[in-house]
């Protein structure tokens, strides 16, 4: 077995030094009646494994082959090749949590730089070293708001990513929270007037929301602060932060979103990157790992895990969260991505997403029977209403090697004829024109 360095002679010698003849003796503490049956898994050689996985891969149709207008939480963006090369360095990916800071300065400095970038992007004072994903980050933000305010009522928008909503409900189901869902208006924005008159711990809004629509963020922040609650700003498309005002400038108390767009491939939904940031006053209430600047014995700048007294290995059941890891390698990818793109590149990606999405939406809207469901402003995603339920159209597109969008009735039963369409910079104009052409063709074929 190529991963096991011990030879048979080694094993014999080592057992002999333990006064044993057989390795079985090392397992004499296991009751014989519960010994495992032999596992019926056939081993594959390296070439056989490669062939097998390739065959499985061939049963998929990937985004290199298909033109995709799918978004809704996971986005296809251009990733510079250097991101793979650098995050693929064994010194990064075969290390673990930087418990021994003196031999983990690579990971520690990278996370410190990542935290700095998150603070810049979000306009918040402090950020953690990352969470599992956007959905669990939002759930953790809700728990943090409850612990800060001591209040049980929590409002969230129905236009928050439907899976984030489900994760939020799952996380909080036994904690006695009173969850209030706010409906959306005809513009596709959260209806802030529907916020009941009571004390809330927080209001959670996603911006752009799941429908791609830009929320009245400043207004939402004002409304919830008037009630003494915190404003939690979520996002699933991190590239929007390249164009929209930073949430910190609009009154956000906690920012919790998904960073997959920043140099991480779609990966069938995971791994991703939970981004989490807050105000300095709440720093000690923040969940997750945090890296801080330090000095070594010679006065040299160094980095180390800080504020560990919040965490489970010290506080156990009184910890701010049960999380004991982060998505370090994904955070590293985001850092390398943003370092390469820089101010100009990241801005260019955001602008291209914006302009291409608007070019496409305008062209699609001109097709009779097709319209934008919501009139609110959007960033790079929009909801299209088709003349009938979208399965026929999406299948027609798939025959033309296009993934046309996400049918929304799966998450919102009232949106039967609606499709969420996402555009990023990966689409040249000809892709957009082709989608318009095909929709016209399909529309013409309808009775």
């Amino acid at each position, binding site marked *: 077995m190529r991963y096991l360095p011990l030879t048979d002679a080694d094993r014999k010698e080592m057992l002999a030094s333990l006064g044993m003849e057989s390795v079985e003796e090392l397992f004499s503490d296991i*009751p014989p009646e519960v010994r495992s049956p032999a596992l019926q898994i056939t081993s*594959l050689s390296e070439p056989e494994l490669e062939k097998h996985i390739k065959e499985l891969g061939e049963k998929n149709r990937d985004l290199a082959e298909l033109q995709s207008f799918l978004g809704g939480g996971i986005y296809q963006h251009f990733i*510079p090749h250097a991101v793979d090369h650098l995050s693929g360095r064994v010194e990064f990916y075969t290390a*673990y949590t930087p418990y021994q800071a003196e031999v*983990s*300065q690579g990971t520690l400095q990278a996370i410190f730089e990542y935290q700095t970038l998150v603070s810049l992007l979000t306009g918040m004072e402090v950020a953690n070293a990352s969470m599992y994903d956007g959905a669990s980050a939002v759930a953790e933000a809700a728990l943090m708001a409850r612990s800060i305010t001591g209040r049980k009522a929590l409002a969230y928008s129905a236009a928050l990513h439907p899976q984030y909503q489900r994760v939020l409900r799952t996380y909080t189901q036994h904690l006695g929270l009173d969850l209030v869902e706010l409906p959306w208006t005809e513009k596709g924005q959260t209806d802030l007037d529907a916020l009941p008159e009571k004390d809330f711990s927080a209001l959670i809004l996603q911006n752009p929301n799941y429908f791609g629509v830009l929320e009245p963020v400043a207004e939402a922040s004002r409304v919830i602060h008037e009630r003494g609650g915190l404003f939690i700003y979520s996002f699933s498309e991190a590239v929007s932060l390249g164009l929209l005002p930073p949430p910190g400038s609009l009154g956000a108390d906690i920012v919790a979103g998904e960073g997959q767009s920043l140099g991480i491939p779609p990966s069938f939904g995971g791994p991703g990157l939970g981004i989490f940031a807050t105000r300095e006053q709440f720093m000690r209430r923040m969940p997750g790992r945090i890296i801080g600047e330090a000095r070594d014995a010679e006065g040299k700048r160094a980095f180390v895990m800080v504020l560990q007294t919040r965490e489970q290995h010290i506080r156990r059941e009184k910890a701010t969260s049960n999380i*004991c890891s982060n998505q370090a390698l994904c955070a590293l990818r985001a850092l390398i991505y943003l370092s*390469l793109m820089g101010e100009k590149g990241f801005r260019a990606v955001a602008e291209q997403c914006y302009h291409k999405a608007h070019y496409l939406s305008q062209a699609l809207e001109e097709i009779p029977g097709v319209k934008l469901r919501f009139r609110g402003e959007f960033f790079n995603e929009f909801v299209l209403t088709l003349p009938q339920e979208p399965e026929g159209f999406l299948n027609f597109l798939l025959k033309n090697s296009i993934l046309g969008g996400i049918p929304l009735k799966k998450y919102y039963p009232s949106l039967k004829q609606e499709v969420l369409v996402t555009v990023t910079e990966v689409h040249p104009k000809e892709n957009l024109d082709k989608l318009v052409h095909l929709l016209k063709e399909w529309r013409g074929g309808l009775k």
Partner: protein
Amino acid sequence: MSELIFEKSKKGKTGFSLPELDVPQTPPPFEVRQEIGLPEVSEPEVVRHFTLLSQKNYSVDTGFYPLGSCTMKYNPKINEDLARMKEFALLHPEQPEGTLQGALELLYHLERYLAEITGMSRFTFQPAAGAHGELTGLLLIRAYMDERGEKKDTVLIPDSAHGTNPASAALTGCQVIEVKSDQRGGVDLEDLKSKLSPKVMALMLTNPNTLGLFDENILEVSRLVHEAGGLLYYDGANLNGICGYVRPGDTGFDVVHLNLHKTFSAPHGGGGPGAGPVGVKEALVPYLPVPTVERNPEGKFYLQWERPKSIGMVRSFLGNFLVALKAYAYILTMGGEGLKRMTEDAVLNANYLLHLLRGHYQLPYDRICKHEFVLSTSPLKEYNLKVTDVAKRLLDYGFHAPTIAFPLIVEGALMIEPTETESKETLEAFARALIQIEEEARTNPELLREAPHNTPVRRIDEVAANRNPILKK
């Protein structure tokens, strides 16, 4: 001193290349944000910056990393390449199922392998890490109890357990009661009996535990907990000590989480991404998160979202799929016999290393260990030394330190897990270093107190760093 990427930034430098915008512009009706402050650096400078940073890391591929309960084994290279294949990395989770058949088939079979290995019925891949799995597993148990009208809100956890166990229990609204360990390092049966009550929802157990010891009374523990109406939760952090030898499901565990980044060789990534799939016995299957991966009679794979009793979702989509892919590749490489051999070598390595160190360090529980063992450095207090000093000195010898100061029930603990992917020679070199350090402690304690001496930075002042935390540039 190493510069931050921001300190290398200079206006006018570019590290990206994109096509020109090829559609007409639509002026945004909102105010576009001002300068963000992202660094502007050229590609070769970015590459050098991160390459040099990487070289300041200790890693499994550069040396022995005996971090207890973390299973820092070798991460096979083919698995990394397979996970980068565009056929997997470039899949969108909202694609129609017909375009995802390979990915779903992979998860379907991996679920069955994990069920076979652990003796459970079904698995969910949604939890992204071990602690996330704990939360999921406890929510499943609560849903099961709630449906039976059982008002149970107490979770029993041994004093040797990882801190995530009580933290996860608290997240499910449960109270935590600690159970003592006995003289042999296992669950103290008398203490357990005194704490069992109709309010007990579950006992969470890591077996082998964080002392590296298999609980010899596991069947009795299981009987007692079940008789009191509770369920048994298996923390899979230490599956590497028993995989192929005994299945948690056969010893009475009702729910398990596994750490694919430990037992099944997916890399730790500097802290993540990992994966913490959760497996359950038949009675708990209805509560598993949505969606589950199913196969229809025609052999087509699909996602089942309609599960009325499901606890919901704990993460978006299907969890860390690419990590699951690496575990799948590993399991197929090892095969059933290879997994058993993996455990044998892991346990043999641990016992051999323990043998080499016996007599040089205090050994609070002297019995056959499984994949790891715990020594105590408390006698070094005589020289005014702490376990941290021993750990830092080990860095000078070119080794990563073991897990230190844990488990809490051993004063000055060194928790050592060599894994099966280390040679006899490496274990011997490590033992020589630890023995030498013990001698240095007696003859030249300053050497330890001031360690490390030859690492990229010297000992870091953590107290000062925590006084006024600086979390960004």
